[in-house]
């Protein structure tokens, strides 16, 4: 008989008129990994935020180890031994890794303190530079810090919210090793995800949510991939887009012997050469923190080049404005760069379109409004109105809003960084199809840590490691396993 750790009974949570959780039952046992599966907006995060004390349920009961509990804040949750690894790292960017981890200290014996935390990191195979300032770290590295916090706090229960979205296959493997270790110690782990293969790989039991309701709660052996897809989105859909051949045009982007420095003055990009032609998607695969960010920033004019050249349509890139003339950019940093949260939906679309809708220095807002309405509809952005502040939208809608703006601007070069991050299956498919379509008239540079995405979309693939391209291969000849090994630095070309 398995021992019950958490039982959530008939949990209901409404946000104004939307029912985010509709009478959901959820049980977590000791020593299991419980996959919580569902699309964007299915209610997974809401349910886990209730368990972690971030939201109060409108209705329902929560039991921890058989005892009825009222979790009013994360503090209560931590006291009960519940830890959480958020999807997006919530760290103090200006402090070091070690300083960020000191928030854990009050819960520990003073004598062991930081040594204990370092010991935990070592035990679970998490390697990090503890003196580095968080601001300089990649997403994957920041995620590791959150993982350590979760492990220390979640002595009984650990919630992992979409933990693999920004991790490379290699990082996912070590995360899964870490999860298995915790399961063997008798912890209960909730693995929140919309990635079916990963859930099938790690979970012992799986609960599927759809539109705020629990549609299935099964053990791993009872289901297969197709069954889960059907449960999750209601119909069976084809995840595999067929890539057709497109005639190649002229060279749009050319990068020659490029060297770029990172924030610390170290060389992040160490001599990269490539070109992207109209009619192809050039994919850059690699684990976060291997120079992709600096490379993209240099190409888009946001970071100075220390040596080498970047040519767009044959002309040397001299300023960010020069890039914008021919290029669009879906940045890694969505809120605050890709999208201004204090601006309305309309103004956010206007950011790149205002000049197309202007006359003698005046913006023609009526026409701009019509255009925005069309874009919002085409890209399925759900917003109460065009005057709504963009910061109030959900993560998926924020992503779609940026994509709507950047992908519809009809430029020669599209630089897309993690374009489908945080999107559900339906939106992901749509965006991928769109990128394939856009390469008919534009050159596309795709940077992603999602190897599946790179393999599915790219015509040519570069693997980046340690600031260099390990190899550039034609998509038809690409061997996923080989690329995986190159990404992890195990294998050179």
């Amino acid at each position, binding site marked *: 008989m398995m021992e019950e750790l958490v039982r959530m009974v008939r949990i209901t949570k409404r946000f*104004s008129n939307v029912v985010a959780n509709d009478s959901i039952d959820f049980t977590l046992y000791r020593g299991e990994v419980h996959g919580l599966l569902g699309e964007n907006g299915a209610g997974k995060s809401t349910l886990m935020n209730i368990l972690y004390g971030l939201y109060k349920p409108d209705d329902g009961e929560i039991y921890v180890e058989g005892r009825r509990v009222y979790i009013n804040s994360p503090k209560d949750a931590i006291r009960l031994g519940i830890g959480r690894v958020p999807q997006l790292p919530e760290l103090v960017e200006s402090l070091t890794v070690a300083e960020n981890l000191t928030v854990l200290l009050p819960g520990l014996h003073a004598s062991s303190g930081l040594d204990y935390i370092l010991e935990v990191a070592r035990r679970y195979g998490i390697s990090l530079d503890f003196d580095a300032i968080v601001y300089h770290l990649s997403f994957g590295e920041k995620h590791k810090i959150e993982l350590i916090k979760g492990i220390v706090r979640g002595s009984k229960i650990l919630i992992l919210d979409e933990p693999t979205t920004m991790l490379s296959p290699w990082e996912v493997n070590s995360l899964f090793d870490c999860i298995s270790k915790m399961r063997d110690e008798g912890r209960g782990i909730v693995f929140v995800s919309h990635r079916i293969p990963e859930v099938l790989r790690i979970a012992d039991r799986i609960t599927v949510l759809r539109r705020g309701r629990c549609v299935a709660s099964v053990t791993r052996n009872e289901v297969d991939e197709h069954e889960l897809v059907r449960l999750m989105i209601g119909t069976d859909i084809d995840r595999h887009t067929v890539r057709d051949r497109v005639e190649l045009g002229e060279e749009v982007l050319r990068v020659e012997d490029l060297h770029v420095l990172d924030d610390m003055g170290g060389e992040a990009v160490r001599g990269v050469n490539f070109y992207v032609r109209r009619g192809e998607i050039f994919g850059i695969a690699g684990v976060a923190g291997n120079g992709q960010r600096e490379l993209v920033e240099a190409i888009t004019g*946001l970071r100075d080049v220390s040596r080498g050249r970047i040519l767009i349509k044959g002309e040397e890139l001299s300023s960010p404005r020069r890039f914008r003339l021919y290029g669009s*950019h879906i940045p890694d940093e969505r809120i605050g*760069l890709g999208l201004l949260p204090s601006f309305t939906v309309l103004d956010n679309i*206007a950011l*790149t379109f*205002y000049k197309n809708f202007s006359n003698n220095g*005046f*913006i023609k807002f009526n026409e701009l409004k019509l255009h925005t309405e069309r874009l919002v509809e085409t890209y399925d952005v759900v917003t109460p109105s065009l005057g709504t*502040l963009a910061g109030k939208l959900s993560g998926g809608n924020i992503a779609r809003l940026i994509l709507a703006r950047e992908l519809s601007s009809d430029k020669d070069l599209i630089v897309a960084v993690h374009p489908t991050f945080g999107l559900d299956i339906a939106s992901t498919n749509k965006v991928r199809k769109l990128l394939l379509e856009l390469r008919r008239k534009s050159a596309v540079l795709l940077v992603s840590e999602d190897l599946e995405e790179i393999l599915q979309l790219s015509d040519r693939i570069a693997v980046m490691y340690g600031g260099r391209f390990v190899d550039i291969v034609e998509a038809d000849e690409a061997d996923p396993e080989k690329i995986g090994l190159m990404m992890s630095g195990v294998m050179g070309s």
Partner: protein
Amino acid sequence: MKVKMIHGLKIERREEPGLPARILLKVLAVILSFLFSAILFAISGIDPWYAYTLIFVRSFTYSGLAEITTKLIPILLCTVGLIVAFKAGIWNIGAEGQLLLGAVGATWIALFVDVYDPLRLPLALLVGMIFGASWALIPIILKVRLNVNEIVSTLMMNYVASGIVDYLVYGPWKGAREWGFPYTDKFPDTVWLPLIPGTRIHWPTLIFGVFSSIMVYMLFSKTVLGFEMKVCGQGRKIADYLGMPYGSRLMIAMVISGGLVGLAGVGEVCGVHRRLRYASSISSGYGYTAIIGAWLSGLNPLGSIPSAFLLAFLLTGRDIIQVSLGLPFATSNIFNGCILLSMLVVEALGRYRVRWGRWTI
């Protein structure tokens, strides 16, 4: 979403307060500060009711309103000017100095430049604006080129400006006919701004102030330049990402800001004093008062007119308190401080919606 119930009153978080709620909140803030100040009066041994009656009765006479309007002019121009800077993400705390420089520019034209007389007044207005704008341009160039924090630089430059004015009126520009007072000579009447008879209201400046608030409103709601300034105000990285010219847009915003504020300085010397005097008598802190004005209007240029009126009313009330009730100058400053604090507190309240039965605010 957190909901709290207190005796049938339901308080919940909301997204954005609507316009009626926002106006109501501002009124609430003013009432709140009146209540605070009432306590202050009581402590000073003055019946608050008597004090307020006195302030209101005296203010809303013909001469009282004329005095309020006179004070409204520089506050309005400074407020509109500051709104331009604030909207472009620049913390211009330097309106006080920019105003003084505007006054210096006008004085220079009025007394020391040989020009064709009918052109003297327009030239004084223009040069005053240029002086104010140039003074504002220095900190913004430092910010754009060298990343110097403009809060500190604009604030510090106020003291420099005030020193310059005092140096001029005690030194080289000291009037020959002023018996040693720190004043310049009286301006020739060709450079006087026309007044509404029987008052000190220099109406051309007033009209320009109202006009500028409408223009600035149009600038930010309709034009490419205004939109770009607003976006660049979000930071250099965003401007770079979108390929917008960050430095030039910030500089334009600051030139407009400093120019409008400089004009306020011209209005004071050509309309009210008709000479340059020591710094603290040219501007009784209008540049700082306007910071309150800008936030009071919620950075809406059209809101600057009622905000400037309220602040002018308070400054006039301050004079009444001083003269008629014999309270120290500082008392009235506390009164102004109360308003700003109430505004900030009430701003936070705006993030909640209150329901009581069928009533919702």
